[in-house]
């Protein structure tokens, strides 16, 4: 294989963490919805915590994205 095709392959492999992030986001929002429906009065606190953990989780996906972009455009 030449370098260009290996680059494309590597960029594809680099975004594989999105699998785990998708699982995590699904779990996070499922439990968020469940806990809000169990206790609707705690919605405010739960939502802010949920958004915070969403951001922490999403940063992993974005790191993968940055690595893929570096492989595609910078290296």
């Amino acid at each position: 294989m030449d370098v260009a095709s290996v680059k494309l392959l590597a960029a594809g492999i680099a975004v594989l963490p999105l699998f785990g992030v998708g699982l995590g986001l699904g779990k996070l929002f499922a439990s968020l919805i469940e806990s809000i429906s169990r206790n609707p009065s705690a919605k405010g606190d739960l939502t802010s915590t949920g958004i915070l953990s969403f951001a922490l989780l999403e940063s992993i996906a974005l790191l993968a994205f940055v690595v893929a972009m570096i492989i595609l455009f910078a290296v």
Partner: protein
Amino acid sequence: MVDPLASFEVRNIIPIHIFGMDISITNSSLYMLLVVALICVVCSLGTRGKSLVPGKLQFCLEKLYLFITDTVNQQIRNKSAKMFPYIFSLFLFIMLGNIIGLIPGSFSFTSQFVITMGMAFVVWLSSIIVGFVVQGKHFFRHFCPEGMPSYIAPFFVLVEIMSFCFRPVSLGIRLFANMLSGHIMIEVMAGFAVSLAGIFMFDPASVIPVIANVFLNVFKLVVCVLQAYVFSVLSCIYMAESLEPATDKSKECEV
């Protein structure tokens, strides 16, 4: 196909060289100055009247102020008034910078790695300095909470120090990558529309990417505000850690 990374290019507008240092005004710093000027103008206009029944602008500013006050008070129990101006200006700066980048043809400085990392390192370093000033050598207590079994302590301290050192990196990269990926997504979608309209004389299918772009823009607007909020909440949490002693058990359970 247009290069989707073309709009992130930093161009030199007014070259200034002083003492061998390059402090030229680029489009990045121009937009930063623009945002700062916008914040100053809006805040001074909104608080000029200070009427009991707020007008439109004053109402928006009051809402924003209360929102950030709530956030800061939630994270930092005592001494939150000292931290508030910093967090508020950080939030306004990042949010307006993100939103200004959404205007077609403009430049979003928060999608520059240097700028977000710079802001993140300022937050991190100031949290260290504040921690040592407020707590002295008790600041190290955060790396090794009380009641830790001695056989696990070295490993735990190592992991804590590593996670502490990676804080600014994750803080900066989160904002930068969010903005970058959103802009690239919008530009790729716009590129679809252009290439569809360019190949044929007018293809009705080229309307689809344009409509998708509208929804992407709305989504990006949400992400812009959300990322500014997340940045300020995380800096609040880091500041809270340096303002409060580690022995407070209720604090640890929450974060």
